[in-house]
């Protein structure tokens, strides 16, 4: 179903570049040493979290701070059933469980103003951690769990797979009737509602879709930590980072989140060994600065500069 005309040269070039990059990416374990694979897995994890976040929060304008909750649900899914079922199924279950949580949260809060949604999702991470601690203490008698390890290459390939799936989903949404409705909600929500769009339903479904990928990413990356407990799995930092990466990189397109993720993952790896307490502080400061001085993100600001200096003679009449 091709509503928006996309057979423009620009999209063809973008598509080809993407394909080439993906092929290069798939070959990394073959031609690069072990550390690159680990680093790229982390970058891909943040890319998936950030792009998923953008898919929902950018068009609707509802700021979700629940990313860590969905990510954590995926981690716990692997911790609980990872040994019992084939891994692809575990990933799907992790994603599905996160989606269910998102459906519940969305149905409850997305019919209200954005501020309610934001504060509900903010506390959600701590709430689930709390509830899980209680459950573990009183019902299962355990304190945390051990996760079965997977090889770095396996983790990497699963993350590439989830990333590709996310790209395809994002593309399909954009080209579809649903994507048109989603876009219209971001433009003028009231007008969209009065033009027949069930705005709450569209928001909730989009939220659930984005949560699926966050949960799936969590399921895969769970194997990075050998021991997890609610405090480790549900860490507000994973709600913070995707927002930081999206704001810094730029909320509009795919490349903004990808660049933001790459920059900050690399920065994190670099700083975490040398200045462990400082890096969260620095990232917090960057967030404040980026919101104040980079309203279009890095990619958007660069685009604006490009348009201003190189496209002057193409100005619209």
């Amino acid at each position, binding site marked *: 179903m091709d509503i928006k005309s996309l057979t423009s040269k620009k999209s063809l070039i973008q598509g080809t570049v993407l394909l080439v990059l993906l092929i290069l990416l798939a070959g990394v374990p073959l031609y690069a040493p072990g550390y690159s694979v680990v680093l790229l897995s982390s970058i891909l994890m943040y890319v998936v979290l950030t792009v998923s976040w953008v898919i929902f929060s950018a068009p609707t304008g509802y700021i979700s701070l629940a990313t860590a909750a969905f990510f954590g649900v995926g981690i716990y899914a692997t911790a609980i059933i990872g040994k019992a079922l084939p891994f692809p199924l575990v990933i799907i279950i992790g994603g599905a469980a996160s989606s269910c949580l998102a459906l519940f949260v969305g149905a*409850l809060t997305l019919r*209200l103003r*954005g501020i309610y949604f934001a504060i509900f999702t903010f506390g959600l991470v*701590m709430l689930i951690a709390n509830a899980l601690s*209680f459950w573990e203490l009183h019902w299962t008698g355990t304190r945390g769990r051990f996760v079965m390890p997977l090889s770095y290459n396996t983790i990497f390939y699963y993350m590439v797979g989830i990333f590709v799936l996310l790209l395809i989903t994002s593309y399909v949404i954009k080209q579809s009737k649903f994507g048109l409705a989603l876009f219209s909600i971001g433009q003028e929500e009231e007008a969209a509602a009065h033009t027949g769009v069930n705005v709450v339903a569209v928001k909730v479904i989009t939220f659930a879709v984005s949560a699926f990928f966050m949960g799936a990413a969590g399921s895969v990356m769970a194997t990075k930590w050998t021991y997890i407990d609610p405090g480790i799995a549900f860490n507000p930092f994973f709600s913070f980072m995707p*927002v930081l990466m999206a*704001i810094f990189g730029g909320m509009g397109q795919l490349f903004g989140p990808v660049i933001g993720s790459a920059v900050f993952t690399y920065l994190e790896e670099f700083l975490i060994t040398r200045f462990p307490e400082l890096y*969260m502080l620095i990232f*917090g*400061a960057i967030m404040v600065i980026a919101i104040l001085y980079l309203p279009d993100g890095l990619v958007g600001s660069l685009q604006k500069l490009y348009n201003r200096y190189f496209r002057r003679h193409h100005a619209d009449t």
Partner: protein
Amino acid sequence: MIVKILDVLIAGLLMGGIYALIAVGLSLQYGVARVLNIAHGEFIMLGAFATWMLFSTAGINPLISLVICSPFLFLLGFFLHKTIFSSLLKSSRTMDIFESKSMLITFGLLFIIQNIAILVWGADIKGYSYMNYGVSIWGAIFPANRILTLVCAIIIGTAFYLFLAYTRLGKAIRAAAQDPHTAGLMGVNIDMVLALCFGLGAVMAGFAGALLSMCYPIKATMGMEYAIIAIIVVVLGGLGSILGSFIGGLILGLIGSIVITIEPSLALVAYYAIFILLLIARPTGILGK
């Protein structure tokens, strides 16, 4: 039986007093300055740590610390608003955009303040002992320091209420909370009032932190849970109603006390259950617009 009920009720009030202070602080910041400060908990933490530090190193009475530290916290809040949120307000096209962006900025501030605290004081648990002896009320025994916190909370709350109701500045704040534009037209220096409210909110948080440090152990990561509680109380009381936040705090403290007697670790879950009920039945809260 009656003793048991009284026990729970009074314990609830003791906790509720602190919740009320925290919530009033947040309500000032959101209701007037329209900043949903999710770093509010970090100001609580700062108040707690400052009090602990003064007590442990110089033996200074926590009540005196309350007075000493408040100007600093006020200036911190005031300064943050003047530099960051004022300029954001001017550059935001709509109020919704300002609310989203300012909230995200406070998310960044949360990590900044928390990690500075960890760097300075370390991440482990601290505490000190102050007025730890028991006091008997109607047969039930309570630690004297907790009763002191309730008394302080009542004094601070009353003083603040009188300030809002009877001083010129207080009236300006109430006007700005209701309708900033018109208040500005009537001669209220809105920029100053907003920054003032943000500073006052920070002071309230600091008070609550100081009082908390008297009764409970503290750690650098304690802030977030209190921020969440403050948010739930503000929603319960009604977004924008300062009185509502005060009442909501007392109610939530009572409910928390009841839940804790049944199952201590489920307090936050109970608060969230109330949150969910509110969102379903009455999002505007008890006294909300």
